[in-house]
């Protein structure tokens, strides 16, 4: 691949991702509305799609307020961290056989590393706001994300065992005959649940639960800084959906259609599922979430790991 091609891929991925993240504003509102028997935004532009523009403009024109009691520099950096880490995670995702920014040997670990760094945005945002609700949100976010990172990593190890590689293109190639969602159903479920907790999406949006903590860790944020958290959340959804597709649903593999289209269709289905979850499930209590993680998911995923390892060894010899 020449340097020029590389730059084009980077720019293309960035462009598509940011557009998807913005477009999800509209998709989410429309779909949520439909699932709640409403119509949703349908005024601005065809099917109301220009609400994306209106919303972004609104965010740009809002007063960008930094509270005088906040820790200024950390307050400013926190929203950038979430977008930065999530965008960096996309580096390793193979969208199609040749469309990948960097097919690292340690791709999966890189993804885990980036998602573990994303915690900082919540923790620091919550701390720097110097506000009790933000602080509570930040602390919840920290413990939730650290805990669920463990299960996320462990749930992927079954796939790694079967493939024998951390490289995502190898993982996709290994699913030629059978997708890993059939071989690793437990891994899939745990990964997806951990993914929801990791992106702190509903129903696990405990760090920002607006009914008890105002808006949690971003209570004090306004304007485009809040917008960054917003975009970061949508990018996170896209990332987890793309990862689920790549790891468990055969990535770009599929008959007839071009590979990239397959990838987008599958990813989009998972994004829809994220939104459906938001529309249907209530938020658990904080201790319930933790108990659920440590007492149910952890034993489950360890058992899965043990059985997968045993079977893999047995088959190999």
């Amino acid at each position: 691949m020449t340097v020029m091609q590389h730059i084009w891929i980077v720019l293309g991925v960035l462009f598509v991702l940011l557009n998807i993240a913005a477009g999800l504003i509209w998709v989410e509102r429309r779909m949520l509305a439909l699932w709640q028997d409403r119509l949703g935004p349908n005024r601005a532009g065809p099917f109301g799609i220009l609400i994306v523009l209106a919303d972004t403009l609104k965010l740009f024109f809002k007063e960008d307020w930094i509270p005088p009691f906040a820790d200024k520099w950390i307050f400013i950096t926190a929203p950038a961290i979430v977008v930065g880490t999530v965008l960096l995670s996309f580096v390793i995702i193979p969208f199609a056989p040749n469309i990948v920014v960097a097919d690292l040997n340690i791709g999966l670990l890189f993804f885990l590393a980036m998602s573990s760094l994303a915690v900082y945005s919540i923790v620091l945002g919550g701390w720097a706001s110097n506000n009790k609700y933000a602080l509570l949100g930040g602390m919840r976010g920290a413990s939730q994300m650290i805990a669920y990172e463990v299960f996320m990593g462990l749930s992927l190890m079954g796939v790694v065992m079967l493939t024998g590689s951390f490289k995502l293109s190898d993982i996709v190639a290994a699913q030629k005959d059978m997708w890993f969602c059939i071989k690793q159903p437990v891994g899939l479920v745990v990964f997806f649940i951990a993914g929801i907790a990791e992106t702190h999406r509903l129903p696990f949006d405990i760090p920002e639960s607006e009914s008890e903590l105002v808006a949690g860790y971003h209570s004090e944020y306004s304007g485009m800084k809040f917008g960054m958290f917003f975009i970061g959340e949508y990018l996170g959804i896209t990332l987890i959906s793309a990862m689920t597709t790549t790891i468990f649903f055969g990535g770009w593999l599929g008959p007839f259609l071009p590979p990239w289209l397959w990838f987008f269709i599958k990813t989009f289905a998972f994004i829809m599922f994220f939104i459906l979850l938001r529309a249907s499930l209530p938020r658990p209590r904080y201790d319930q979430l933790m108990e659920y993680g440590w007492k149910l998911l952890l034993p489950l995923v360890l058992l899965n790991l043990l059985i997968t390892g045993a079977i893999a060894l047995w088959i190999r010899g």
Partner: protein
Amino acid sequence: MISHVRTIWLTFLHLFTKKVTIEYPEEKVKLHPRWRGRIVLTKDPDGGERCVGCYLCAAACPVDCIALQATEDENGRRYPEFFRINFSRCIFCGFCEEACPTYAIQLIPDFEMGEYNRQNLVFEKEDLLINSEGKYPGYNFYKVAGINAGVKGKGEGEQEEAPVDIHSLLP
């Protein structure tokens, strides 16, 4: 766990149900006849003002948004000299309508009265007075009232006996 999956599935099915949204400007909301909306002053069948300027509505109003000044014409018929309702304070409780003895003040099913300027929400009598009998057609207060205010003579009203000649009562 099963119940969660069931919830998700049932929510998904709502994609195909009929939506409850009323797309307002194109599609009007169906308001009921007794819906409490914009306040009007009505006229009686003869075209005269119903309001007699009794101040009962102003007294009943919990937010004190009605102001009026009663006066009389040459026949002795009372009417408000000015009648002012500040709709930016009105809470559409309907107490004024209940208090009114002449069915003059009425709340009608209409809510499209948004304004950009708050001052425009202060409605004067000429804005309030409509050329209609509102919800109580055919009712004419002065036809049943005992007083002669140029509508009918004393004792000529509906179900009204002629005034007793007090001289005939003398023993």
